[in-house]
């Protein structure tokens, strides 16, 4: 049997935000595809639950970690590499949002959201991409959002942070290219994470229809994002870099 070029089997992948939502599903799917996992999240308890859902045939190490703690990041990454070996890839799923009209958002809201969604990933990449920490041709994927590409009222701070992801990936791709690394981002549309599912159930039928409107293929599932991330982290995607892959059931192509 020829080796599947789109496989991540045997690779060691760091996932941020592994305690819930898209991050959790990515961990589960990646483990079933044979990747060894390093899960980072601030919520240690939920992180252990994710670990319990992962395939027991791969190594899965959990680290409680605050991505916004720039000073502590070097130590965490050193520990991760010492205990798991060189890192083949990283997927940044950790993200927070606050839905408020722009004139109700405070400077502090912008700071908090930007520090997790953007700076958190940069803190981590700064250390992960060091020569002694990464495997050859390491690949990185950051989760952005379709709100980086199209407007949606009420998510100013979130959209700004996700737009920053789409921009920064282009610059990082050029800086990393000479060292054989690639970096891309994924812009999901509305994904039925457990949190979103609960939210949807609390809505009236009319509100639900409004939320689903504009998605020609319906709403997405966390595995839709995991699959695309898996492709971008595989060797098959080695000539793709700096891109924003939109996974949205056709929402933005309308």
């Amino acid at each position, binding site marked *: 049997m020829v080796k599947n070029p789109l496989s991540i089997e045997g690779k060691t992948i760091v996932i941020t935000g592994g305690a819930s939502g898209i991050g959790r599903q990515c961990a589960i799917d990646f483990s079933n595809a044979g990747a060894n996992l390093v899960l980072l999240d601030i919520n240690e308890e939920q992180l252990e639950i994710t670990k319990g859902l992962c395939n027991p045939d791969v190594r899965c190490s959990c680290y409680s970690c605050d991505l916004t703690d720039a000073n502590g990041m070097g130590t965490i990454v050193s520990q991760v590499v010492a205990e798991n070996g060189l890192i083949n890839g990283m997927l940044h799923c950790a993200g927070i949002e606050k839905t408020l009209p722009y004139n109700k958002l405070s400077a502090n809201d912008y700071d908090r959201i930007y520090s997790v969604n953007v700076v958190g990933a940069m803190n981590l990449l700064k250390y992960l991409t060091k020569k002694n920490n990464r495997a050859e041709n390491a690949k990185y994927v950051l989760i952005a959002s379709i709100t980086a590409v199209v407007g949606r009222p009420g998510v100013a701070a979130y959209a700004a942070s996700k737009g920053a992801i789409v921009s920064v990936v282009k610059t990082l*791709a050029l800086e990393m290219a*000479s060292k054989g690394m690639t970096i891309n981002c994924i812009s999901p549309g509305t994904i039925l994470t457990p949190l979103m599912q609960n939210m949807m159930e609390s809505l009236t039928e009319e509100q639900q229809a409004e939320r689903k409107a504009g998605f020609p293929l319906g709403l997405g599932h966390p595995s839709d994002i995991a699959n695309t991330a898996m492709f971008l982290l595989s060797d*098959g995607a080695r000539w793709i870099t700096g891109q924003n892959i939109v996974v949205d059931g056709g929402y933005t192509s309308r």
Partner: protein
Amino acid sequence: MTNYNPFTLEGKTILVTGASSGIGRSAAIECSKAGAKVILTARNEERLRETFSLLADVENQPAWITADMQRDEDILSLVEQLPTLDGVICNAGVSINVPIAFIDREKLQQVLNVNTIAPILLTRQLVKKKKVRKGGSIVFTSSISGNNTVTVAHEMYSASKTAITGFMRNAALDLAAKGIRCNAVHPGMINTPMVHSGKYSEEQLQKDMDNYPLHRFGEPEEVAYAMIYLLSDAAAWVTGHSLVIDGGLTLK
């Protein structure tokens, strides 16, 4: 068991146009390795036969169908002969690069016929005859040319490739109701016979290559892998997307 593979094409039947060389040939071979039954089509029977011989599990592959996509009767007859498909790669392409002053109707028609009109008419016929299954996926080989970058003397090629991307985006919306997805790949310069046909000097090619952040052209398989992703159920929620595969060229 850790054998989860969302990219498998097992059980899928895929039509590949322009399968006699370059990206099309590579796409056909890689799709067959991913488990697909691949139906090859192109004009040149001899080279189709050669691609066919390179397919994985060749004894179980369906026969190729020769067709000239510039002829309506060939498109009709091709589609008539096809089984229900899970995927289509509209890949056949041609490039004629001349300065604007040297553009004429004949050259322009040739480029548009092959790169734009043929894939549109093929898609039309496939849809009309309900040859693409619900959940099926159509992938168009477009280009970074015109869509993501511009180059002197590539006007006709750019026009044809932006047109097919425009068609793809509308078709994605139109066919979503039937559960059929449409996406495009936008490759940069790929090491294919088209690139090394003597049209460009080796010196020019080296200069172009140095311009790529990853310092090389792409390989046909690297486009094929992206096509496999788009054809597979891994991309079940991806439609209307243009996937740029260019080693970072158009970021600068």
